[in-house]
């Protein structure tokens, strides 16, 4: 089976990682997570630079590590390419020597020449890494990692060492290079923009757990819990105080469901670009406009609901908008609303049920896709 199976645990004094996921070996997989979420550790496990405390990692059926059978394949044998966060170029070698390091002497000259051409490094071949810009270093690191024709390319926060202004250019370069290399890639990042621009698949890691994994579009539009949604850029979280068979409600008002929601949900969530600001009496969820400001080509409008929850709407800059102090109401389009638990366990096969004493708890908990299961009856 063409997949990277990871079932690994790492236990340290101050950190615990427990990942159980199967990643497809195609396209670009981005693992998104905040600092300290364990994504770097995961990458190092895959590279063979760390051993799991327990578990098994296999690549395309080939066992890379298995603590039970005491198998550990060292990084030299895994046929991976790795681009380190600081690029880790060999400081005492020229660009050409860096690129050719992973090759046998016989094929070095020819292959390095081709790589230098492909990555537009002609004028830099005899320079040392200290004489290169951030973008040039990234190109050299990528050329060095890809020249050995690896079966998996690992990228550790590839843009954290460069200025924001350079980042988009480098993303474009990286995307082209990865596409040309036809090598499955796994990158870890804490920039949502990297995910939007580069990824085909997304994994979301928080506190050492992979909370969600899937196709980019699925994960972005259907986060499975509040923690994931926050990381994916969802801004509005309305606290749910209770769920009946046909509605969820909170201090902010209520939202009608077509059928019973079998979930211990804590939050009604919607992205800032999907929430609607309607005239005052158009819906039962009332809001007061607190402030508005321009953010590039969009306008951000901050409102306060009746229970004090702050929500925000983002809309095109030139669209009409309510002024500060005005009362309005909130529209929640069915297709854009998600009813979410606080957290899921991180075991992707069984979503946990976080206890909320104010809510009815059910035995089975599912990720609710509001598009399929809820209808608004307002």
């Amino acid at each position, binding site marked *: 089976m063409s997949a990277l199976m990871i079932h690994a645990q790492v236990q340290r004094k101050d950190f615990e990682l427990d990942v159980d996921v199967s990643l497809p070996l195609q396209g670009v997989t981005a693992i998104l997570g905040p600092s300290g979420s364990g994504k770097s550790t995961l990458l190092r496990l895959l590279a063979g*630079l760390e051993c799991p405390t327990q578990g098994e990692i296999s690549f395309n059926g080939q066992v890379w590590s298995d603590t039970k059978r005491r198998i550990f394949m060292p990084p*030299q044998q895994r046929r991976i390419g790795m681009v380190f966060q600081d690029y*880790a170029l*060999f*400081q*005492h070698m020229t660009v050409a020597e860096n690129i050719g*390091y*992973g090759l046998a002497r016989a094929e070095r000259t020819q292959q390095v020449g081709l790589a230098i051409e492909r990555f537009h490094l002609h004028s830099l071949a005899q320079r040392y890494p200290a004489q290169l810009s951030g973008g040039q270093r990234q190109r050299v690191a990528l050329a060095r990692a890809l020249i050995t024709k690896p079966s998996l390319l690992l990228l550790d926060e590839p843009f954290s060492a460069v200025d924001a202004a350079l980042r988009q250019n480098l993303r474009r370069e990286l995307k082209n290079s990865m596409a040309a290399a036809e090598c499955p890639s796994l990158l870890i990042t804490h920039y949502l923009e990297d995910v939007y621009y580069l990824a085909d698949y997304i994994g979301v890691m928080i506190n050492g757990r992979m909370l969600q994994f899937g196709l980019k579009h699925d994960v972005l539009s259907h986060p499975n819990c509040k923690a994931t949604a926050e990381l994916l850029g969802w801004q509005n979280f309305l606290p749910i105080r209770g769920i009946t068979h046909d509605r969820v409600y909170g201090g902010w008002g209520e939202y009608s469901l077509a059928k019973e929601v079998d979930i211990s949900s804590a939050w009604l969530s919607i992205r800032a670009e999907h929430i609607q600001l309607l005239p005052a009496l158009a819906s039962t969820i009332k809001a007061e406009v607190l402030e508005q400001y321009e953010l590039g080509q969009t306008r951000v409008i901050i409102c306060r609901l009746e229970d004090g929850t702050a929500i925000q709407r983002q809309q095109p800059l030139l669209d009409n908008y309510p002024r500060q102090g005005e009362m309005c109401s909130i529209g929640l389009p069915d297709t854009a609303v998600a009813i979410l638990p606080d957290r899921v366990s991180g075991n992707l096969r069984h979503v946990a049920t976080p206890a909320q004493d104010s809510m009815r708890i059910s035995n089975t908990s599912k990720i609710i896709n509001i598009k399929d299961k809820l209808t608004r009856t307002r």
Partner: protein
Amino acid sequence: MFDAILVTLKLATLTVLLLLIVGTPLAWWLSRTHSWFKAPIEALTALPLVLPPTVLGFYLLLVMGESGPLGQLWQTIFSHPLSFTFTGLVVASCLYSLPFVVQPLQAAFEQLDRNEIQAAWTLGASHLRTFTTIILPQARRGFLTAIVLGFAHTLGEFGVVLMVGGSIPGETKVMSIAIYEYVETLQFGEAHQLSMILLGFSFLVLWMIYTVNRGKQIGRWA
């Protein structure tokens, strides 16, 4: 006089070679470990820096002497004593000059970029190739400092040498002891010649180290 110079050079060369073989893995371990043993081992390694050479020499004589455990073992295996021989002098010198080799190496290893070493592994390089192509070139200043300091320090040994090796011409009589004996017998001219050689060499050595470590430059021999 030439005997003393020859013995000294032979002793310093052998001591540095042996210390590089023993000191490199020790320095590597000290630079990487978080073990509880690190502090006591570092302290033991650094002891010759603060201990009077006569104290070290006295205990080495007890251990390496004919009735000492190492001396007896040596006698049993090789059928000749360890103390007051050139071999005994080499063993004592190695212990005495250990910190001058281990500490510069440890400092150099601690400054290595771990990611560069791991990048070499991911590119398929064996540990040996990583050592020769990444670690050695990047820690070369540390190796050079270790070699020069180890060599220079062995040249200047006196107390330990006198205690463990005595003053057997052509065998254990090194330059510093020869100078001492020339002065005792009022041969100031000879003492002066040997002293100038040691003074000049020591100055050149320190000059070289400061030049090498002066600043960071870009390139292969930075």
